């Protein structure tokens, strides 16, 4: 026996594949991408009775024909990787629909074991299944399980190991598709076998069926391998297709689908299933849907649930966020005390701890938000949200499934565009996905919030809540209008039909919630942590180098010396001590020394590369009312929006760079001649809509391409600047400042 048994987990969406996968592998799993596409590739390892098993969770599919990316991925994996066993997870409470895919696995001939999941739900619904008879009729081993509780999974794995040990050849099943199609299949199979056409990869009958179903991928493969044979197969398929179309107004795939369902029915009808209750009755899930998806009640319920999600996220994450802040504060203090003054200390504290700490400080918030979203997702409610929002999103050229990326990115204020961009994976249409991916960064993420809170608190203190609400609404309007513009120009194309199966409502398992939450949070930590570290150090360097000339530094030292010399040694000593209560003279000396420090800091910053860039941009940025110091902060915001406040703090020589102490920065801005209400408004619209932070850009590039990432950076900045200029110029013209 090989070192690992390779097993694939396949089945319909919502059949419980991921629950079983999580149960079997726990944390020993790896999430990646299938090459070239953004469909998750989940692989995990576990062992049973000394046998190591490698299991792959394939995407949920309804068929093995190339109707969607998931179906292609699942089929390609089975054919190319040839796993030793396929565990086909089947929902026992919805047997007929689930066996449709089973039927196709059998036609492909893969070695298979059926995991008949949700036996408990089936029992509750009064459905009893004669397992022996079903096993006998299908000719496939069946193990009843309840993936949520783990019931029956040991037996399932034992059976899997047993099937793998048999090492049998693939045995494709033949199903009749009616006289017309069967005759064509015989003809097609004869040609395929004679010419050995694609037979190394697929069973001949499977290839014949795919030619009849007009499967684009198999036909393209066939054209590539042997154009002549492929053309003759297409001709045979075309003849029967035309005939069926003329006589019955249908295509072969409809007949094939119906015969597959017919095959399943013929098995089920042989006393395999008995229903205790009326089969026509609606289940609890359907009854809930009648209320939850109701035209009037649905949106109200959705509003309450989403509000609850944000309440939960922000109120529960507050304490751990504070703990993390204190932790990074302590870490900074510790390093401050341990290391001697110098560049290394400055880089570690200002570059590494402030930068990375600023981002990692959001982890509890992200964790709680993903936990809330996992509850909505695993309970089945998220699919209903997509269903209800599709009505509005469609107007703007988006899809109902775009709603979650928007909410995750900060649709209700808070959130983060990084997981938001990643959440666009649920969208199937490439153009709708791109439009969503490019517009989610317009939402007010958790990093923009402190900046907005600072500027609103400083300049519009009397209507704080109203302005915050207005800026949230503005973010939505801009994002949706931008999506519409994109869909009418560079991403023009027909909307994708909103056809999806609504999963039944289920009680999520705690284990599943934890795994889902951690999976996503870890991706955030990994991506944010690594990129931010580099950028923070770079920014620190840009704001530090070149340092002031020796001569200029000496001049500042001289100013300090002259000042301290004018006070008695007792006062100087008192001012140098960090005492809480100082004498009036010591207090004055301390303040005067701090003023010199501030001037030195300000001059150092203006002399640095960042300062030079900020100053050189002043000619253009002044159109929107931004001075060189604001420019530096905004450049810093390219790395992470959190950096804006800390950079502004340094740039305005405050010495205080903590978000918590932003009040004093607010006062400084209030007294600054370069700041007023109009400038604040212009700055806020610019911050809200300019280039996404670097981590988001990297994510956009990973999820699409660098071309789109650069497009997002440039177009957003141009739009934001134009908007800010309009706000500033109109505001100034109307004397609103």
């Amino acid at each position, binding site marked *: 026996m090989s070192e690992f048994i390779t097993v694939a987990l396949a089945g319909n969406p919502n059949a419980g594949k991921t629950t079983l996968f999580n149960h079997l592998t726990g944390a020993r799993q790896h999430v990646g991408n299938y090459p070239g596409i953004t469909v998750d590739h989940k692989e995990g390892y576990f062992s049973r009775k000394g046998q190591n098993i490698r299991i792959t969770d394939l995407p949920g599919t*309804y*068929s093995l*024909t190339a*109707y969607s990316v998931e179906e292609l991925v699942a089929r390609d994996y089975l054919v190319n990787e040839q796993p030793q066993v396929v565990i086909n997870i089947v929902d026992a*409470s*919805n*047997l*007929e*629909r689930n066996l*449709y895919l089973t039927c196709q696995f059998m036609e492909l001939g893969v070695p298979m074991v059926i995991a008949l999941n949700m036996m408990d739900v089936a029992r509750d619904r009064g459905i009893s299944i004669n397992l022996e008879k079903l096993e006998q009729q299908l000719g496939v081993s069946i193990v009843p399980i309840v993936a949520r509780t783990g019931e029956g999974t040991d037996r399932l794995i034992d059976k899997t190991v047993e099937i793998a040990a048999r090492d049998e050849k693939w045995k494709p099943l*033949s*199903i*009749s*598709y*009616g*006289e017309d199609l*069967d*005759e064509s299949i*015989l003809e097609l199979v004869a040609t395929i076998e004679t010419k050995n056409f694609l037979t190394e990869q697929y069973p001949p009958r499977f290839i014949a069926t795919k030619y009849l*179903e*007009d499967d684009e991928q198999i036909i393209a493969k066939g054209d590539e391998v042997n154009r002549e044979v492929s053309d003759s197969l297409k001709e045979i398929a075309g003849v029967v297709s035309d005939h069926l179309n003329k006589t*019955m*107004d*249908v*295509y072969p*795939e*409809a*007949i*094939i*689908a*119906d*015969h597959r*369902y*017919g*095959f399943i*029915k*013929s098995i089920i009808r042989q006393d395999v299933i008995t229903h205790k209750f009326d089969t*026509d009755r*609606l289940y609890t*899930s*359907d009854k809930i*849907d*009648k209320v939850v*998806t*109701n*035209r009037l009640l649905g949106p109200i319920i959705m509003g309450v649930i989403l509000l609850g999600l944000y309440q939960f996220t922000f109120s529960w994450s507050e304490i751990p966020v504070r703990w993390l802040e204190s932790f990074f504060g302590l870490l900074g203090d510790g390093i401050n005390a341990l290391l001697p003054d110098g560049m290394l200390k400055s880089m570690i504290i200002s570059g590494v701890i402030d930068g990375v700490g600023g981002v990692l400080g959001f982890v509890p918030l992200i964790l709680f938000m993903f936990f809330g979203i996992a509850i909505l997702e695993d309970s089945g409610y998220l699919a209903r949200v997509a*269903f209800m929002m*599709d*009505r509005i999103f*469609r107007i703007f050229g988006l899809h*109902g499934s775009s709603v979650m990326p928007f909410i995750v990115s900060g649709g209700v204020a808070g959130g983060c565009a990084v997981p938001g961009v990643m959440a666009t994976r649920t969208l199937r249409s490439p153009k709708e996905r791109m439009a969503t991916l490019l517009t989610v960064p317009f939402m007010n993420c958790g990093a923009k919030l402190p900046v907005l809170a600072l500027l609103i608190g400083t300049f519009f203190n009397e209507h704080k809540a109203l302005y915050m609400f207005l800026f949230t609404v503005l973010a939505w309007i801009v994002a949706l209008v931008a999506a519409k513009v994109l869909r009418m120009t560079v991403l023009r194309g027909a*909307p994708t*039909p*909103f*056809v*999806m*199966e*609504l999963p*039944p409502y289920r009680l999520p398992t705690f284990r599943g919630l934890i795994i889902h939450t951690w999976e996503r949070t870890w991706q955030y930590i990994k991506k944010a942590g690594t990129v931010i570290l580099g950028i923070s150090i770079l920014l620190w360097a840009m704001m530090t180098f070149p340092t002031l000339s020796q001569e200029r530094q000496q001049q500042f030292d001289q100013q300090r010396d002259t000042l301290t010399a004018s006070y008695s040694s007792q006062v100087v000593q008192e001012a140098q001590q960090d005492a809480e209560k100082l004498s009036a003279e010591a207090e004055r000396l301390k303040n005067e020394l701090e003023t010199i420090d501030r001037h030195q800091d300000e001059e150092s910053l203006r002399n640095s590369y960042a300062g030079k860039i900020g100053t050189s941009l002043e000619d253009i940025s002044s159109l929107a009312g931004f001075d060189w110091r604001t420019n530096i902060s905004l450049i810093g915001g390219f790395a992470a929006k959190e950096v804006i406040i800390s950079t502004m703090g340094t740039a305005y020589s405050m010495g205080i760079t903590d978000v918590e102490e932003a009040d004093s920065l607010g006062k400084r801005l209030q007294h600054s001649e370069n700041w007023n209400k109009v400038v604040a408004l212009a700055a806020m619209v610019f911050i809200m809509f300019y280039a996404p932070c670097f981590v988001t850009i990297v994510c956009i590039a990973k999820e699409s391409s660098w071309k789109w990432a650069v497009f997002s950076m440039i177009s957003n900045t141009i739009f934001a600047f134009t908007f800010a200029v309009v706000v500033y110029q109109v505001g100034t013209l109307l004397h609103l400042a």
Partner: protein
Amino acid sequence: MKLKKFHKHCSYFTENLKKHCMRDHHCDEEVVPLSRQSKCGRFKVCKIHGDRKHCARMASLGLLPGEEMEIICPENGSLCVVKVRGGSITLDNDTSDKIFITATE
């Protein structure tokens, strides 16, 4: 001979076609697009229009002529929810416009 035996238990589709669809005289009075049906309840699929890929996708979801379905949430200008072969499926306006249904007998 072998082929005949093979066909023996596989005539669902043709049976459905003969019984319920394609024959306009059989259902023309009651047939309406699913998008126009504003009431919940059980209905039968008569015909599915649209391009080949679309029809195939519907077929794989179990939406085939002759199949019975239950409307859980009727179309309200955008989407509807129907229950087919045990699963609840959402269909947008364009899709439900192309599905023609009739009341069950």
